[in-house]
């Protein structure tokens, strides 16, 4: 069966510090991968998606970047965090044009 992991679960970082969030998927190959951000009480905003290794599409120009160094690994990064980067970050995968499967999320607080 397929599983998706995200870590860390929670993170508190000062403004200006770097960020690295990791997402890995098990039990499937060549999935489409997605990073979303959810502000408090809001819906999900698609940040990046990837249809293959090294292929990254950015939906919203901002302070973040994404990379896919391996088939089932998706990394969200920032060189210098802003207060506005606080939120709940969710990784998801899909194999076909059907439902997406979400990880447990990372709660990021920038202080």
């Amino acid at each position: 069966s397929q599983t998706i992991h995200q870590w860390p679960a929670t993170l508190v970082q000062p403004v200006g510090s770097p960020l690295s969030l990791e997402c890995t998927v098990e039990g499937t190959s060549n999935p489409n991968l997605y990073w979303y951000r959810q502000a408090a009480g809001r819906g999900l905003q698609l940040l990046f998606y990837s249809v293959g290794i090294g292929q990254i599409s950015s939906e919203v120009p901002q302070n973040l970047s994404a990379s896919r160094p391996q088939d089932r690994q998706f990394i969200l990064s920032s060189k210098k965090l802003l207060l506005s980067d606080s939120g709940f970050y969710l990784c998801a995968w899909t194999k076909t044009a059907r439902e997406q499967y979400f990880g447990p999320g990372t709660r990021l607080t920038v202080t």
Partner: protein
Amino acid sequence: SQQGEEDPQALSIQEGENATMNCSYKTSINNLQWYRQNSGRGLVHLILIRSNEREKHSGRLRVTLDTSKKSSSLLITASRAADTASYFCAAQEWGGSEKLVFGKGTKLTVNP
């Protein structure tokens, strides 16, 4: 850009009542999906309705889709306290990325 828009934003009902949530979207879609999110957790897929379908059932869930009005509704019948969660619609556009555009969600509270 956010395409799905749910209403109401919040809904409070008693156990046993039905809950109806609505969603509107803006562009042509491949399918429309509904997800549930318990507080502070990831999203769980509930049901998918394709653009050529008008109604779909899954257990106590009933989803309708009206592509002429670009709208969908989710009905939860005989609600339970455990149904308390936020519900999101997500429009999947045509194309190779299979990306979803989510609405802001409806927060449902079912009182025992």
